């Protein structure tokens, strides 16, 4: 069902088309929209006026002209359920931090840089036209990072320079120009970037018939930029193209994936196998093969990594504005005085409340990292008490070092898991489910000791096994074909794993929630780091015993300890691709705030418990959507 009121914040260099791509799906599913546009753009106001004249539904589209500082104010209005921000990366980060804990969910679409990989088997002239489309025209979103295979380097540079000489710049509405101007701010940004690149030793080539006054900036080609220079990591502004060589396709992938941006890319190669290999390997939201900049409303467009995870177009674009039926609307849970610097920093001492009574428990559980139990770095344990206050067991006290080790182990196991065919993944999940059922009595008694009724405990164990099986069966989802009008050739909507997924499990339904979340994540090809329920981690640790024998080492890592501290470590970790947090409201706010570090997508519960036993909330499509990311692969055909 639809979300409600959507706020849309646009960057100073937004294009009307981008705005429409976001407004139309929102209106189509029944949301109403408030758009904040920078001052000086009358066109959205005109659109709103037309919308207002529709008569029966005034107010479905509202436009405010104002500075960017109004953004957080818009987002914190009661009733705004989601805010989408399109703009620069830094502003997105700031917004993410300001909106932590607010009622509105935040969707980010950041950065405009794209990538072009030119292999030796490409039609170089057509690729040069692709570069012009991507970077030196009014249709281009931002700058371009160009990777050229060494063997065709000279040829390509020559053609690029010739082509640049024929470009014309001028006022945008003049029909005979290729590129207009995008304001003084964009001009200054480009100027600064080029100067800095030059000072770091790069070669800069500018050409084209462009007026030399600001705000017009000529097409620019930067080459020989040292890889270690700051300019290589910074976003390339329009209309600059930064060219770097590569030797083999593997190197191209490494270089291409080596920036924090993950927006869009194109691969130019007439060899199908090579083109697909590169297309699948690039970590971006959209890949075009032998084309650049093709767009269509039916095809989802979005990004990953620091390009934000907001989508428009296609089914993903619609899901942005929908939430599962039955889930309540989000309410703000802002706690004004949450100190982000100290949240979860120190581990509170957990001393037993009284003398130990009862039989001595078994040896303390270790941390399940890298496929086996190991002792925590801090060499300390915490005691777990059952519902009567008696000591049940000792579990390890995990710390920052352990989290680091767990994430590393997960990264090592991830490629192997991704390359497993869906059938293999399914069979492993089924084997885990069977192991769970075999040891049903052990799990039931562990749950009972925590005050869970026998009947409920039995149901919990049975459901856990069933969920594992169900998600195993759903492991087939590889993606499907989209038919795009006006394009000859297929467009694939691939569902790819996120990478390493960190999950902080809830206290309610300790075993069921653990199993449901784990199953969904694994079925989609992710490697996981889990923090089980702080109150009742024993069932999760028991499952680890089975996982040690069944699953590849490092695929699932379970770290016990102080929940806030471990959450802090995971949220601030730059190499965790997504974080699901089901804990307290304060923790949720911290997670949202900290995710601004590498802009990882987060899913928090704002301190509200979920009914994991119900299908809709425990095993619904929402988990599937969040456990993977989409990639659109365009394959125009013709010979």
């Amino acid at each position, binding site marked *: 069902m639809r979300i409600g009121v959507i706020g849309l914040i646009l960057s100073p260099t937004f294009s009307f088309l981008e705005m429409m791509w976001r407004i139309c799906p929102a209106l189509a599913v029944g949301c109403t929209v408030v758009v904040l546009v920078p001052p000086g753009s009358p066109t959205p106001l005109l659109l709103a006026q037309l919308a207002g004249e529709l008569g029966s539904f005034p107010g479905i589209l509202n436009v405010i002209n104002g500075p960017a500082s109004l953004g957080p104010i818009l987002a914190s209005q009661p009733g705004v359920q989601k805010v989408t921000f399109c703009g620069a990366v830094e502003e997105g980060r700031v917004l993410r931090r300001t909106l932590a804990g607010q009622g509105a969910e935040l969707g980010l679409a950041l950065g405009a840089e794209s990538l072009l990989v030119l292999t030796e088997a490409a*039609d170089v002239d057509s690729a040069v036209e692709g570069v012009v489309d991507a970077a030196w025209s009014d249709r281009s979103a931002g700058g371009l990072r160009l990777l050229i295979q060494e063997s065709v380097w000279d040829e390509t540079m020559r053609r690029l320079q010739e082509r640049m000489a024929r470009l014309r710049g001028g006022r945008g509405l003049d029909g005979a120009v290729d590129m207009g101007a995008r304001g003084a701010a964009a001009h200054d940004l480009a100027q600064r970037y080029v100067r800095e690149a030059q000072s770091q030793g790069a070669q800069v080539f500018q050409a084209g018939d462009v007026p030399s006054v600001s705000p017009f900036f000529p097409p620019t080609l930067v080459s020989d930029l040292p890889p270690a220079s700051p300019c290589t990591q910074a976003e390339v502004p329009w209309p600059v193209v930064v060219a770097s060589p590569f030797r083999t396709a593997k190197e191209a992938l490494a270089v291409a994936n080596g920036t924090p941006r993950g927006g869009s890319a194109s691969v130019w190669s007439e060899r199908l196998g090579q083109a697909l290999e590169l297309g699948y390997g690039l970590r971006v939201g959209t890949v075009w093969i032998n084309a650049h900049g093709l767009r269509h409303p039916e095809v989802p467009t979005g990004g990953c990594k620091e390009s934000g995870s907001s989508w428009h177009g296609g089914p993903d674009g619609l899901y942005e504005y929908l939430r599962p039926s039955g889930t309540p609307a989000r309410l703000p849970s802002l706690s004004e005085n949450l100190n982000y610097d100290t949240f979860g920093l120190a581990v509170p001492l957990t001393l037993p409340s009284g003398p130990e009574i009862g039989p001595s428990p078994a040896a303390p559980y270790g941390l399940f990292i890298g496929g086996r139990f190991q002792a925590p770095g801090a060499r300390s344990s915490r005691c777990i008490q059952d519902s009567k206050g008696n000591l049940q067991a000792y579990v390890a006290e995990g710390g920052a070092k352990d989290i680091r080790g767990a994430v590393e182990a997960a990264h090592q196991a991830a490629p192997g898991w991704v390359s497993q065919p869906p059938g293999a993944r399914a069979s492993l999940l089924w084997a885990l489910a069977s192991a769970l059922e075999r040891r049903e009595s052990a799990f039931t008694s562990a749950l009972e000791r925590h005050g869970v009724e026998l009947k409920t405990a039995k149901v919990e164990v049975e459901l856990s096994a069933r969920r594992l099986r169900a998600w195993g069966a759903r492991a087939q989802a590889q993606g499907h074909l989209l038919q795009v009008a006006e394009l000859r050739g297929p467009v694939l909507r691939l569902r790819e794993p996120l990478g390493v997924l960190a999950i902080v499990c809830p206290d309610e339904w300790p075993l069921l929630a653990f199993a449901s979340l784990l199953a969904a994540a694994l079925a989609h090809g992710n490697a996981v780091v889990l923090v089980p329920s702080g109150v009742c981690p024993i069932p999760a640790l028991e499952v680890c015993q089975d996982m040690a024998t069944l699953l590849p080492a490092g695929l699932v890592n379970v770290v016990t300890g102080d929940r806030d501290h471990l959450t802090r470590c995971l949220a601030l970790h730059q190499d965790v691709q997504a974080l699901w947090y089901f804990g307290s409201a304060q923790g949720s706010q911290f997670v949202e705030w900290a995710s601004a570090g590498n802009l990882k997508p987060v899913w928090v519960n704002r301190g509200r418990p979920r009914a994991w036993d119900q299908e809709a909330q425990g095993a619904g499509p929402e988990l599937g959507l969040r456990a993977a990311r989409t990639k659109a692969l365009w394959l125009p055909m*013709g010979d």
Partner: protein
Amino acid sequence: MGGRIPTRGSRRGQRARGQRARGQRAGGGGQRARGAEGPGAEVAGPAPRGTGAGRARRSRGGGTQEGLGGGELGVEEPATAAVARAMSARNLGTELDLSWISKIQVNQPAVLRRAEQIQARRMVKKEWQAAWLLKAVTFIDLTTLSGDDTSSNVQRLCYKAKYPIREDLLKALNVHDKGLTTAAVCVYPARVCDAVKALKAAGSTIPVASVATGFPAGQTHLKTRLEEIRLAVEDGATEIDVVINRTLVLTGQWEGSDFIKTSTGKETVNATFPVAIVMLRAIRDFFWKTGNKIGFKPAGGIRSAKDSLAWLSLIKEELGDEWLTPELFRIGASTLLSDIERQIYHHVTGRYAAYHDLPMS
């Protein structure tokens, strides 16, 4: 496709011709990368068999075909050695290197997209449009290739070639003293005499081009094809559009040339932008590799002034201003000229001309 061959023999004192050396001297064959299949394709060629300076060379071709090779032919005369030398500077050619061709990649969807872009962008308006149209007139090879050509319509054509735009329109644009004419007049071999006579009577130096070698199918004997060329040259033709032998091309026996043409103009699909883009890129590649400039002629299907402007901007974008001269670029057309004249009329007077307002061609 055809190649253009100037004949060394007949000079007729045309100043243009001396500079427009288009002969090929000994040993050189033009060479070009292979482009798209279909109506336009280019030719790449090994050296024609010819021997050194001073010898007549045989053209290997004579076929018809859309878009494949051109042949070349040079006829030498001792008296015109100086001219011959000037001509030979033009395309010395290179050795055939088929590996060069096999390395070429062409991505069709991308080329189609570029073709669409060319037509959609670069709108030229008002006086600039008029200027470009007048420039386009200077590239036209005014052509008549019908079965019922006689001396009267050829004469009318030649007159139109000398005075392509009505005098008063030119006066209004202040270009009446520039000597604006079309680039050439193109006729069947049998009509070359009439054309030459008519142009002489009009006092014009416009070259007469003749199609030859069994145009348009080219399925005639080598002996008659060569004889055709010889006779046309004797009658006074200074350029020859040769149709090459498709059989030889398909079996890989290439020839070189000075000009490449998209097709004979008599096929169902003639000059289209995607094909032209590939051909122009090949011309540019050849120039970068060998320093020789090869000309380009689209023919067939170019009827509107708007189209001709798109062609001009295509040449300008892909090859640059150097190629925008009649020595390196021609448009083979017949009705195009009247459409251009209408546009000029509209620009000058602001009204749309009736059929009878403008002289027939």
